[in-house]
């Protein structure tokens, strides 16, 4: 098969599926994995796709939000995506969960739309839309004052509204984790919301990108022990991993190395 023909097929596949796995494509076209990896490499240079572990994703130029270098942004997206994948594996059938605001939370909500039978409570409007996309879950959006910047609702109404519910698990995101493992967020409203969310849940799980470690935000929230578990990237330094273990908080690392059985 000619290279040009392969390229055409890969592009078509990516446009339909948004992502492609090396193994799958190599089986489909009956050429070696190495060849497919080379094709991906070329297509990446052309700016059509972004290579990931074991595959590639469609590069979407419509996402104009980045100020960071595209390569950094792509890596970060992939890392956040892995955290969301791990979080999704923790959600069981018929769970009642709460998701607060944040980038990873929105990714998680998108993934959860593929499940069914869940009840999802949220104060974030994008989370609400993402989670309800499949139509198989019950999604409840809390009331309150609209926060334009974060596309969510906040304030005392939201807090009072939230206290009426009880959930199995809450997923939260913070804006900083200090070296002593103190959590912090950017505003007082957010701090109050998270505190109240943790109170109404059996189990609180913190989603955080590893670069947040060693940074501090404006409002102190409390020690890391206020959550039951942590999901972060495996690249986090050993020092932090051991420190979290010592605090007796369960640490999930979003390892995504296995490419599946062939």
């Amino acid at each position, binding site marked *: 098969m000619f290279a040009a023909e392969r390229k055409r097929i890969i592009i078509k596949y990516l446009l339909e599926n948004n992502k492609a796995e090396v193994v799958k494509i190599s089986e489909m076209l009956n050429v070696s994995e190495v060849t497919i990896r080379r094709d991906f490499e070329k297509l990446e240079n052309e700016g059509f796709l972004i290579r990931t572990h074991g595959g590639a994703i469609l590069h979407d130029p419509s996402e104009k939000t980045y100020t960071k270098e595209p390569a950094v942004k792509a890596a970060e997206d992939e890392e956040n995506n892995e955290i969301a994948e*791990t979080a999704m594996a923790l959600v069981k059938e018929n769970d009642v969960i709460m998701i607060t605001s944040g980038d990873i939370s929105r990714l998680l909500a998108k993934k959860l739309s593929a499940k069914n039978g869940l009840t999802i409570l949220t104060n974030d409007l994008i989370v609400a839309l993402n989670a309800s996309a499949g139509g198989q879950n019950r999604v409840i959006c809390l009331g309150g004052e609209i926060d334009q910047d974060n596309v969510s609702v906040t304030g005392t109404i939201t807090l009072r509204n939230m206290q009426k519910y009880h959930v199995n698990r809450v997923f939260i995101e913070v804006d900083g984790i200090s070296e002593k493992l103190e959590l912090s967020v950017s505003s007082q409203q957010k701090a109050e919301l998270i505190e109240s969310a943790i109170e109404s849940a059996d189990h609180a799980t913190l989603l955080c990108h590893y670069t947040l470690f060693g940074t501090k935000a404006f409002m102190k929230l409390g020690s890391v022990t206020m959550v039951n578990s942590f999901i972060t990237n*495996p690249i986090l330094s050993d020092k932090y991993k051991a420190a979290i273990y010592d605090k007796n908080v369960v640490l999930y690392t979003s*390892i995504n190395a296995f490419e599946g*059985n062939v």
Partner: protein
Amino acid sequence: MNKKAILEIKGVNKSFKDEFALSDINLKIYSGDVHVIMGENGSGKSLLMKIISGFFTVDSGEILYNGAVINHPTVNKAIKSGIYYQHQDLPVFENLSAAENIYFDYRISTKKMLKTWNALENISECTKLFKKLNINLSPIKNMSHYGFAERQLLFAAKAFISDAKVIIFDEPTAGMSEVERNIFFDILALIRQKAEVILYISHRLDEITTVGDVLSVMEHGKLISTNDIRNANKQDIIRLITGKQDIHQFPKISIKPNSECVLSVKNMTSGSILKDISFNLHKQEILGITGLMGSGRTRLANCLFGIKQSDGGTILVSGKKQRFAHPLDALLAGISLIPEDRHTNGIFYPLNMRNNMTLPNLKRFLNNSILDDNILRQVVNDYVKKLGITPDDSDNGIQFFSGGNQQKILLARWFMKRSLIYIMDEPTRGIDIASKIDIYNSMNNLIVKGASVILISSDIDEIIGMCDRILILADGRITAELLQKEATKEKIYSLAINE
């Protein structure tokens, strides 16, 4: 009764690079006692004994012997001051006779000046000794004729003639039959009359109640408890061993139980070690297998991977009958093994990290019968990043990585193979906590992506924390099966001891 402390261990610390250590051990050992030490594999029992007998020095702390500090002695000094240590793996001279091995340190000479070996006298002495100790073995046969249990008996005879004051046995009865154990206990009773203190490491509960006076329990390099057990029964002892419930939780992801059976073992036997093993492994399940030393855990792993042949029974992988005559057969059927001893069975020391990782997977990087080094490096770098392997330069020789990172490199090697079933034999033994967390999360990654895991471990917390289902092996048989939610440490211990 006012007893004298013969040995006193004060605040002893010891660490090896980042591998496991002893931390703040304080222990008094009194005259006349048989002091039993128990704990899981890797809890530091043998290390502590080796420090007492001069094989290792302490990082900090003191060891007092008859009231005097004996820190940093050599092995020779320890022997001279009356400490005898009987290794678990005995240092024997294979080509010398039993008599010569026993009397090696206590030679009988023809003439005092020349100190030449008096072979005849030696053999007749040894024959007398064997008669006295009821050992029914030939003193003139070479040591290479004798198996593990017989060697332990012969060295117990050596302990008897050593006239040492402190005698340390490190799991002497692990491979012994009932008959040999009875002879051993008779020797032990004789030694007890001569020596002041016997330190005894064991896993067998029945022995502890018969021979022990005091029991110390160790866990992860720490001394958990020391108790008088003269009037204790088996239940009391199980409670002492499992007493401290580990509060640490494990990062466990459970996938909804899947009825699809990926591996089915029926009536498997192997030598005299495995008897009638039958079990199923389901898709996306972590199945735990635990048991005491010598219960057949590792033999089972080896049979499932074609290292050892099973004598009978069938193995079905995804419903297809398989015979594993060689590890290659198992690999082709979709089974990977992360072996117990990574140093001898996993790592290729002369090679760098990249080659260690890719060696069984080179076929993937074949481009028109030429290895594509560029792609190979890319894939290796991907894995390094995904598993958080440090340092991340794949040109580094494998010996420069810590134990935990070496283990992660081996994981990467077999992940790259993309197998259906992963057998992990003691994957976290002796590695740092951060790497342990990564390895547990890697198991999650495997099952989320559709593979299945068999976790073989002697760390019962780990077994309970990570496994959906637990099989307990005792004397080569599966004696029980527990679900994660019904498993407790106490239950597993009682079942593993199987009495």
